[in-house]
């Protein structure tokens, strides 16, 4: 149980490879179209706002707001079973993208977590780093 590992993304997946590459340098990145300004997230090779889009990678400052969350008390995955209870949250980054992550270091989870300000905390792994969040 204790040596169960956090499941990690496939660092070579075609659409999200560049995002995960950037995490090695603790850069939290997203795409925006130079033509139509659409923010694209999760990452893709095409713009969803226009058909001749040109996506540019930008870095988030790593600050955001808790949009919603749950305290998970039961999981069948060995790693998360050992971690429970843990918090899964949807974070609205200040730049727009909304991402799923864990809120760490929260002692007393309650409804007031929605709307709270958070900042990214990187958890380093061999091939990439995982963006977790802590209350600001």
């Amino acid at each position, binding site marked *: 149980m204790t040596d169960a590992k956090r*499941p990690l993304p496939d660092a070579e997946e075609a659409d999200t490879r560049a995002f995960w590459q950037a995490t090695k340098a603790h850069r939290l990145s997203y795409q925006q179209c130079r033509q139509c300004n659409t923010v694209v997230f999760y990452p893709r090779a095409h713009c969803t706002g226009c058909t001749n889009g040109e996506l540019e990678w930008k870095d988030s400052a790593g600050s955001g707001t808790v949009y919603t969350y*749950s305290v998970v*008390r039961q999981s069948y995955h060995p790693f998360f079973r050992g971690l429970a209870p843990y918090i899964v949250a949807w974070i*609205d980054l200040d730049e727009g993208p*909304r991402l799923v*992550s864990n809120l760490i270091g929260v002692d007393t989870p309650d409804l007031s977590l929605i709307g709270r300000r958070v900042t990214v905390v990187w958890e380093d792994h061999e091939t990439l780093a995982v963006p977790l969040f802590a209350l600001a």
Partner: protein
Amino acid sequence: MATQARDAAIVGIHEFPSRDVEGRQSALQIKAASAARALEDAGLNWSDVDAVYDAGEGGGMAGLNIAEYFGLKPRVIDTTGVGGSSYEYHAAHAKRDIAAGKARVALLTYGSTAHSAVQRIGVGGRAGGGHPADNMDVFAGLTLVANYALVAHRHMHQYGTTSAQLAEIPVATRYHAMRNPEAVKAMQDLDFLDIRETTVDDVLRSRMIADPLHLLECCMISDGGGAVVIASPEVARDCRQPPVWILGAGEATKYPETGGDVTVSAAAQSGPDAFGEAGVSPGEVDIAMIYDSFSITVLTILEDLGFCPKGEGGRWVEGGRLKFDNRDGPALNTDGGGLSSNHPGMRGIFLLIEAARQLRGQSCSQVHGARLAVAHGNGGMLGTRHCAGTIVLGRD
């Protein structure tokens, strides 16, 4: 009502009775057994079927595999696979295909051994890779229950909804389940503890699985399946059972977007399309067969379909409004629902089956004089990405 198109009707139904086949039957066998009983219910035979609708859960190449297994040579093969909402899509497409003259008798089937398979192989964690969206959140441990809990928390935050209000939904479905012998047997076979009608307090006292959702707000995992036969008016006229007409249909998707509102499901798009085509309003509906994977799924969808204004669902469901013998609102999931009767993973076909029973006058929790029903399937995950299919049904 006079302008409603009545060009396809449900004429045969069957719900596979067992929720625990103990690993001795396959999904394909459940599909075939259910198909035979549904055709018999209609007074039809295999040879009458000229269109098959298959979500592919039986394995192999969807459509082809079951055509051969059933021994059919269909002219229309539809393999729309959108999880638990697949069967509402199949019903919509069958109506369209029959109205277009491409088919006369459509066969929809479902089979699953979700419960037996879990017992044999155990439940694994979510795997990474595959779809790029999954590759973005695989590290966070977002369980299925937590996915729906994200919606519930936001709903509470935005509208003041309470756990006691959400609990009204499993209380109503259990009330109906206790009147349905197959649902009671299902709960016994799946080792439910203390099988009885429940109260709001019972739900709130059950253990928390993923805040704010308690155990009794979560659906069961069963084996099971079923079949539905849909036919043209000419065929329906000679069938054994009174026709249950497909009056309207709507389809929609929902996925995360920048600034999106997670409390609004795809039903907000599919519902108005379906009610508009049927020419009826939610207030006229007697029976609401809503995909009850979790309490919050139903609350959100009731609002999105227009049974009450957005955000007011919590107050609206209070006081047992959704029970079959309360005429202030529609009767919810009168078979007992996925919460207390049958949830083998893709429950959408049972929504059509129980709606048809009600409009025939054959439910265990029969609403006297029921004339209109809605079946709303939600496929995928309410909190992240899902498909919705809405079907409005009416009797002669």
